[in-house]
């Protein structure tokens, strides 16, 4: 009876165990536990030789394959409980941004060899982030995507393997030829007698192959100058003044990258008549007899008094004795009365003290 009971209980226990095993994921049983003491390695296969990659240890892994953020990554607000491949890719991109932002130091870095291989070895079990730099080869720009890799990884038989090989995804774009650029500058020069008569501003246009590309205003505020940077050197760039102020003529000359726009004030001197002009009939004007104009007597004009604070270098200097002599600015701190006051004070004090002592002696 006892034997029969024991067999019955065993049968029940085996049935329960089978049910529990059926609820567990089958893979866990197939993979077994991770040997955390076994060193691992990661080999990167890339199409370029000399491309740089960096590796960062993001998370610890438990024997059962559960990841926990570690080290510099410990406090980042990210989750490692992800179910899809695209979610892991987004996580890799996010962590790569944090790495750049916080300037995290990689665990290791290296360059791919002549066959495009790079191996990081003796790595502790865990989850790793790998980032790569943009690399130019044979006229193409290779930009690797950051990726996360678990070490140890799973082999074809779904068993843990310490040596993992990864082929990073990358973008390959033809290298854009560097566009040569030039700089052009407009500088306004006024040639006139009365600076106050100048307009407050003028308008200049930048022409690209003869067509207006940009319009800017020059004024005292921008020191009558403007610079255009990084213009495409494949075009011809010129500068012209769009609305020349009345009573001024304009000339534009080029000095290096600068277009010097000179506005010259027109004088009121009438132009000499053109001989033989079609609209002017020839008139026989008798020549006037020469007149002897005596030279004007020299007039002694006294220099105008100058304000005593000249603001321009060519201000005339005063010489009239009737006006107060101009003086240079008073730039001294008032130190000279200090010793006078101090010495005077000490003298007066001593004098008073001596007198009082003498009076006291007399009284005594």
């Amino acid at each position, binding site marked *: 009876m006892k034997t029969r009971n024991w067999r019955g209980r065993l049968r029940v226990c085996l049935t329960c165990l089978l049910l529990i095993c059926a609820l567990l994921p089958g893979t866990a049983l197939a993979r077994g536990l991770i040997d955390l003491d076994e060193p691992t390695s990661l080999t990167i296969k890339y199409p370029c030789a000399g491309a740089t990659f960096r590796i960062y240890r993001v998370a610890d892994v438990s024997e059962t394959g559960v990841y926990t953020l570690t080290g510099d990554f410990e406090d980042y607000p990210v989750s490692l409980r992800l179910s899809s491949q695209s979610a892991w890719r987004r996580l890799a991109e996010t962590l790569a941004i944090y790495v750049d932002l916080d300037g995290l130091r990689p665990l290791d870095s290296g360059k791919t060899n002549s066959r495009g291989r790079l191996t990081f070895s003796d790595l502790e079990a865990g989850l790793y982030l790998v980032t790569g730099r943009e690399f130019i080869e044979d006229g193409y720009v290779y930009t690797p995507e950051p990726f996360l890799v678990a070490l140890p990884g799973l082999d074809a038989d779904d068993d843990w393997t310490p040596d993992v090989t990864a082929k990073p995804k990358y973008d390959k774009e033809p290298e854009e030829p560097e566009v040569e650029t030039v700089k052009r*500058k407009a500088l306004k*020069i006024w040639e006139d007698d009365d600076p106050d008569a100048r307009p407050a501003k003028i308008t200049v246009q930048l022409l690209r192959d003869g067509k207006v590309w940009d319009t800017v205003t020059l004024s005292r505020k921008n020191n009558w100058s403007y610079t255009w940077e990084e213009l495409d050197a494949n075009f011809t760039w010129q500068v012209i003044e769009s609305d020349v102020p009345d009573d001024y003529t304009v000339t534009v000359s080029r000095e290096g990258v600068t277009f010097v726009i000179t506005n010259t004030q027109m004088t009121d001197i009438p132009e000499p008549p053109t001989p033989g002009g079609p609209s002017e009939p020839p008139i026989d004007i008798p020549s006037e007899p020469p007149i002897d104009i005596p030279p004007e007597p020299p007039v002694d004009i006294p220099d105008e008094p100058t304000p005593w604070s000249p603001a321009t270098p060519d201000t005339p*200097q005063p010489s009239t004795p009737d006006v107060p002599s101009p003086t*240079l600015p008073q730039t001294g701190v008032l130190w000279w009365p200090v*010793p006078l*006051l101090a010495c005077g004070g000490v003298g007066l*004090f001593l004098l008073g003290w001596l007198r009082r002592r003498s009076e006291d002696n007399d009284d005594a």
Partner: protein
Amino acid sequence: MAGGLLLMAAALLLTGYNLWDERRATASADTVLLEMPAEIRAAEPAAPAPEPEDPDEIEIPDYILNPNMDMPTVEVDGHAYIGVVKIPVLGLKLPVMSEWSYPNLKTAPCRYTGSAYLGNLILAAHNYRTHFGGLKELVPGDEVTFTDAVGNVFRYTVAELETLGKTDVEEMQAGDWSLTLFTCTYGGKSRVTVRCVLAESGAAY
């Protein structure tokens, strides 16, 4: 005795005011310097850009194309400044106001007259120890630099020192000096005047 004590108190008060005024002026000039663009404040020429091979692509400073141009200014706290003067041997680096007035002089050295582009710039400043009070200590050969408001740097060498009277307006502007600095003597009746010539390295840009 009371009169003596009063005079001594006056001497003390005046000393206190002068020291306070000097500290205020130092702070004012330092504040202006900090608010100026870095390329002017640095008062050092930037590393020269490589000269382009094509002569059409050479950038010639505006002041060479037009020496008569007004000196550009940069505005700080409502005041126009034409640049920064630096006297390394005195440890001075000071902003320079475009126009002089007594209130302006209480903040920073001022342009008395002239232009760095025409080679006749004259700067005046109070004889605060942290402004031009140390001018009398300069000797021929000392270096003075001036950086204009767009970053052009002019290097000068002290050529000679002279003392002018307070009415020597013509004498101040006489001579072929690229840069002149002046301030009052201790007594305030004369002006310590430092004459400078453009150094061999000259203007850098």
